């Protein structure tokens, strides 16, 4: 069976758990930016945790199916309709053959996840179906007209999943490797201030605007490896939290590292919203 995409909004990509382990070849890890939301969507339709889902940015996805399928939408809140009739978020819904599923404009959050029973079964690239938007390793972005194959159902959906969604809060940070490139109070400034999410934020990084993190050295480091959640600080002092599609190496000093369990929040913060940091 397959899903036929009629509209894909701002950006829709196929995502799974990503392809870690290839940073030494220059390949970003990719993968769902809000892993708990993607995992919930998979659980609801009976998929394994590594099944591929669609990551929909700010809504606007319309799909039909040639054979009936279980679907579930999680993550950013958006109106969900099947053939014009409202359906629920975060629960399995039956999509009959020929029916049209529509995700409206998101009202809060940024990224919604659509899981289909059996998983999106596009051909894996280097062991993963995730699309990396930095170097475009993986399947191409989902466009109107795309036909997405769906795998065989693994098990029945779990209509009674009672997830406890993670709670939003300050992002917990650990010290980073290049604290000596900053004035001694830089980490205190980061944790004592409110930062606003910049409009250039994407799957590569959450760009923040607020009190500058003052450096004591100019210039760049010789490129070095970067981790997920690294808080990188370019010369203008405005921090960038590196997300799933971050370059594997870079030359801006890293002041801190955000706790991995808190990074899902970075996937759902809208430009203009604020974020705070706290020592882990």
């Amino acid at each position, binding site marked *: 069976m397959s899903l036929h995409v009629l509209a894909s909004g701002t950006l829709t990509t196929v995502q799974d758990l990503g392809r870690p382990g290839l940073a*030494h070849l220059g390949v970003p890890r990719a993968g769902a930016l809000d892993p708990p939301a993607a995992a919930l969507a998979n659980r609801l339709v009976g998929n394994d945790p590594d099944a591929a889902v669609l990551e929909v940015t700010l809504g606007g996805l319309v799909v039909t199916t040639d054979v009936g399928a279980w679907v579930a939408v999680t993550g950013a809140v958006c109106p969900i309709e099947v053939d014009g009739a409202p359906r629920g978020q975060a629960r399995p819904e039956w999509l009959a053959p020929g029916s049209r599923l529509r995700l409206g404009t998101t009202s809060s959050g940024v990224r919604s996840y659509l899981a289909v029973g059996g998983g999106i079964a596009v051909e894996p690239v280097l062991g993963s179906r995730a699309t990396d938007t930095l170097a475009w390793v993986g399947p191409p972005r989902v466009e109107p007209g795309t036909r997405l194959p769906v795998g065989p159902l693994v098990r029945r959906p779990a209509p009674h999943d009672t997830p406890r969604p993670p709670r939003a809060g300050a992002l917990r940070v650990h010290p980073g490797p290049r604290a000596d490139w900053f004035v001694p109070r830089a980490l205190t400034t980061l944790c004592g201030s409110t930062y606003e999410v910049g409009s250039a934020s994407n799957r590569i990084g959450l760009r923040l605007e607020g009190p500058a993190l003052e450096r004591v050295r100019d210039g760049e480091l010789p490129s070095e490896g970067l981790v997920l959640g690294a808080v990188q600080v370019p010369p203008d002092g405005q921090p960038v939290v590196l997300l799933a599609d971050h370059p594997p190496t870079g030359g801006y000093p890293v002041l801190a590292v955000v706790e991995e369990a808190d990074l899902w929040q970075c996937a759902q913060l809208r430009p203009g919203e604020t974020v705070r940091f706290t020592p882990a």
Partner: protein
Amino acid sequence: MAPRAHRQTGPVHLRPFGPHALLAEVADASAALALATWARTVGIAAGEVVPAARTVLFDGLATAAVEDLRDRLLTWTPDAVAPDIAPDIVAGRPVGPVGPVGPVVEVPVVYDGADLAYIAEQWGTDVEGVVARHIGTAFTSAFCGFAPGFAYLAGLPSEPAVPRLDSPRAAVPAGAVALAGSWCGVYPTASPGGWRLLGRTDVVLWDATRTDPALLPPGTRVRFVRA
């Protein structure tokens, strides 16, 4: 339980990088490659081992593995690799093959790059001199970065270095062979780029459908030949 004491006895300086990673700082790219090769050879349980210009990142470590690796890295010395190359690493000389020695990859080049004359001027020679030096240099892939399969090839002396363009070209074609500083590289895909262009090759540097997608992973020896 008292924290374990860690004492540095080797050339590796460690920097914290969150709960699942360690950044090992060494003298140069040769030492970084040697350390990364050692880590792969002895089977360090890291999700990622990423050599770079002066560091090796160990990422994806289990919490329990971090402390063990810390001890091993602080006492690591280049002679843990192979006796015949250790002196070169200590002396900061370019290291040839490290670890399992694969065949040398030959890369045929058409030397018609837009910056040939500029490179000749920087090197104090003519275009033929540039080509002769490039062909005569034994390169080693020190690390990858910038784009999938883009290898930083070491082997040229540090002086005279070739500066990058002040403003990168908007589009450099796939297969462009280029220099920056004492590095040589081949663009695996078309992209913007600020390195100085020597020529071009038809060799496919990156193919995600291959078992080994990168032609020049870290540690690969490379020889350029005239196409």
